[in-house]
């Protein structure tokens, strides 16, 4: 039942403006490809593994092949034509053999024409379709396991992060966390992985403040959590990060290994990692199409704005970003129930009435996106190292989550900003959540903010400010707004940033069977 009495016309205006602001960017996303989109396509077509003999260390085969095709004939026609033509021409059985021959300098790629082109396109579509059918099977398998084992018994789902750097240790921590009540396990990535223009290979044991996202690590964690799911009698979901320069590839790997959620924001990489804006928008569109196909819930990153800007002054930028993320996601085919829009409890606790302000912001998000599984993020900015105070603050964060009907609750750690959490810190944090859920889980029924009270007024004010900002973004153009530092204070011009050289304008003859199959929803 709506509690804030938001004006439906204002809400509709906000959505219209978001669509207008996004439209030119969607057009750019449709008319460009990137090296990572092409590599993701080849991963769907079945290329795995890496060239371990390269002097720079393991270079994934998809990188070798895409870089070579780019050198020989460019990527504006898509990588599939030249690759599948070469496969036939050299009479090779598998793409991996082709990759090896490529590394040995034995393959010269060219754009096929006439019957060669038709034959290559047919072979490419068959290979990519096979990959997508694996993604489809995984989705069906998830549905089957959820039906058999069950979803978590209540909302919010409890989301917990592990990050040891070693996938084997992560499994131990994750299993303990699931037994203690976690519904979702997120493996945080190694610092700096978002700026690698390749996806590392194999099981990894040495990350920096996190564990590398690799296909094998995904497989290990999913298999371990399947086992724990049976033990605890509910389906434990696994999360990773489809962000950074390899967003499309990681989306594909998540689909191939039945991950359940992915961090995936439309602007985070631009603002916080200085990744080229065009690269990001192209990559996020493709990755979201893959997520939609895989039934993966995306988690957007609005919480990050509040770690740089003030959580009261910049509250409306969160709303604007949520509306943009919603539009980009819908456009890429993601339905509301896969839209884990983010927001966070980051107001300075010294601000008078900070808790009421938090409730206003959280409720606004809840009512603007009633069908979305909202992700509620814990305090980080005002966690000082005083772990006792932090434990209290996390308790209030949990209470706000319960009171405003949040869907996914990221468990706050009192060790935030101190160390990576101990086993006991995680256990205490889960005890905090359990206490609040058991003690006040039904309080949402009794929570009726006064119609003209502080909370309702504040929510209306934030929505109004969001509409004003969207108006300015529409006037300026979204890319210019990003270049001018409208979001998170960072200025990011569209022609700069990391990965810009991996963006390619599509030629009229561009073909990508993955894009076709995703657009059509086809399996063959």
């Amino acid at each position, binding site marked *: 039942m709506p509690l804030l009495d938001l004006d439906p016309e204002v809400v509709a205006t906000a959505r219209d403006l978001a669509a207008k602001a996004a439209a030119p960017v969607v057009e750019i996303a449709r008319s460009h490809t990137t090296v990572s989109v092409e590599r993701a396509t080849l991963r769907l077509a079945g290329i795995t593994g890496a060239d371990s003999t390269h002097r720079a260390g393991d270079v994934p085969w998809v990188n070798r092949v895409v870089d070579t095709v780019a050198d020989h004939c460019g990527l504006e026609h898509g990588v599939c034509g030249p690759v599948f033509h070469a496969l036939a021409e050299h009479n090779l059985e598998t793409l991996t053999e082709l990759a090896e021959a490529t590394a040995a300098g034995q393959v010269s790629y060219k754009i096929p024409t006439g019957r060669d082109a038709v034959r290559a396109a047919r072979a490419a579509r068959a290979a990519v379709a096979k990959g997508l059918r694996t993604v489809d099977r995984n989705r069906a398998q998830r549905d089957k396991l959820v039906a058999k084992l069950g979803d978590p018994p209540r909302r919010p789902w409890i989301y917990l992060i592990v990050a040891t750097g070693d996938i084997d240790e992560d499994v131990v921590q994750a299993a*303990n966390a699931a037994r203690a009540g976690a519904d979702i396990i997120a493996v945080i990535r190694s610092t700096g992985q978002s700026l690698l223009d390749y996806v590392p290979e194999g099981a990894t044991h040495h990350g920096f403040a996190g564990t590398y996202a690799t296909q094998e690590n995904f497989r290990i964690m999913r298999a371990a959590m399947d086992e724990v799911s049976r033990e605890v009698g509910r389906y434990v979901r696994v999360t990773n990060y489809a962000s950074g320069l390899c967003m499309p590839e990681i989306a594909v790997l998540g689909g191939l290994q039945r991950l359940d959620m992915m961090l995936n924001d439309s602007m985070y990489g631009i603002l*916080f990692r200085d990744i080229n804006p065009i690269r990001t928008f192209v990559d996020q569109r493709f990755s979201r199409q893959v997520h939609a196909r895989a039934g993966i819930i995306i988690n957007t990153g609005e919480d990050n704005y509040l770690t740089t800007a003030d959580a009261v002054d910049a509250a409306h930028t969160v709303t604007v970003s949520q509306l943009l993320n919603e539009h980009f996601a819908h456009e890429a085919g993601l339905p509301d129930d896969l839209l884990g829009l983010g927001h966070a409890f980051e107001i300075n606790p010294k601000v008078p009435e900070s808790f009421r302000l938090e409730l206003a912001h959280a409720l606004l998000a809840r009512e603007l996106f009633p069908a979305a599984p909202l992700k509620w993020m814990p305090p*980080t900015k005002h966690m000082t190292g005083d772990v006792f105070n932090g434990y209290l603050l996390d308790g209030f964060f949990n209470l706000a989550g319960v009171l405003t009907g949040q869907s996914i609750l990221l468990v706050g750690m009192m060790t935030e900003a101190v160390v990576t959490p101990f086993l*006991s810190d995680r256990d205490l944090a889960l005890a905090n959540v359990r206490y609040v859920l058991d003690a006040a889980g039904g309080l949402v029924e009794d929570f009726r903010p006064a119609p003209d009270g502080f909370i309702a007024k504040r929510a209306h004010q934030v929505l109004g400010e969001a509409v004003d900002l969207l108006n300015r973004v529409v006037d300026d153009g979204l890319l210019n707004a990003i270049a001018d530092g409208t979001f998170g204070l960072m200025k990011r011009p569209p022609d700069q940033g990391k990965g810009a050289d991996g963006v390619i304008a599509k030629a009229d003859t561009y073909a990508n069977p993955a894009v076709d199959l995703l657009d059509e929803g086809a399996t063959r």
Partner: protein
Amino acid sequence: MTAVQPDHGKRHVRPYGDTSGDGMIQTSFTLPVPAGPRAEGAALLLAAKMGIDPAMVVHSNAIGPDFTFFVVYGSVRHIVDLDEVEVVEREYPLLPPSEVNTAVKKSLRRKLVVVGACIGTDAHTVGIDAILNIKGFAGEKGLEYYRELRVVNLGAQVSVPDLVKRSRAEKADAVLVSQVVTQRDAHILNTQEMSAAFREAMGARRPLLIAGGPRFDPRMAGDLGVDRVFSRGTTPGEVASYLVHAITQRKEQPV
């Protein structure tokens, strides 16, 4: 003020619980032992070895089948001699971002320009990105977050001549170089090459040179020909505070 006089002016001190000299502390830890009397005994033994005597296990609970968590209160027998305390003095004060911005504004009346790069064949931008990217490191925002700093991050595998050229073009006040790879002392040789190039090209008007990386020793600055070396665990805030300190000093005592 209160009537209680905590060890003010005393040379020998013990922790204070609620009575002077009681030595009371509180601690918590986890042992990889299943919950039960044996685990409690182990916790008490550990507490005794830590100098907590007598120790009270005031709480314990199982974390899964293999671990037990303890909260322990007790009196430590240790005494601290305040005369033995050595305070490592940082040569500059740690400033929050707002004060860094104010200080830059006041002393330069323009933005302070920072150019960062990984030089040589080193492709590990983890370090330089942790310091420069707004995302930051260890809960602190990177230098990009500071309004009065203009950050130019050149990324990986930048050649020394390029770095000198770009630094000159950007009118860099400071150049940050990150080196992770240490094979055959590459980090040392690369950094020496870099500082020599700046000296040759710009002499005394060269920007402030800062090297960072997990295998650097902060005492190596002289050998490397740089102004400052930052090692493992350095946070953006430390670098920003140092920049303000060094730039202000430079202004006061021109080279």
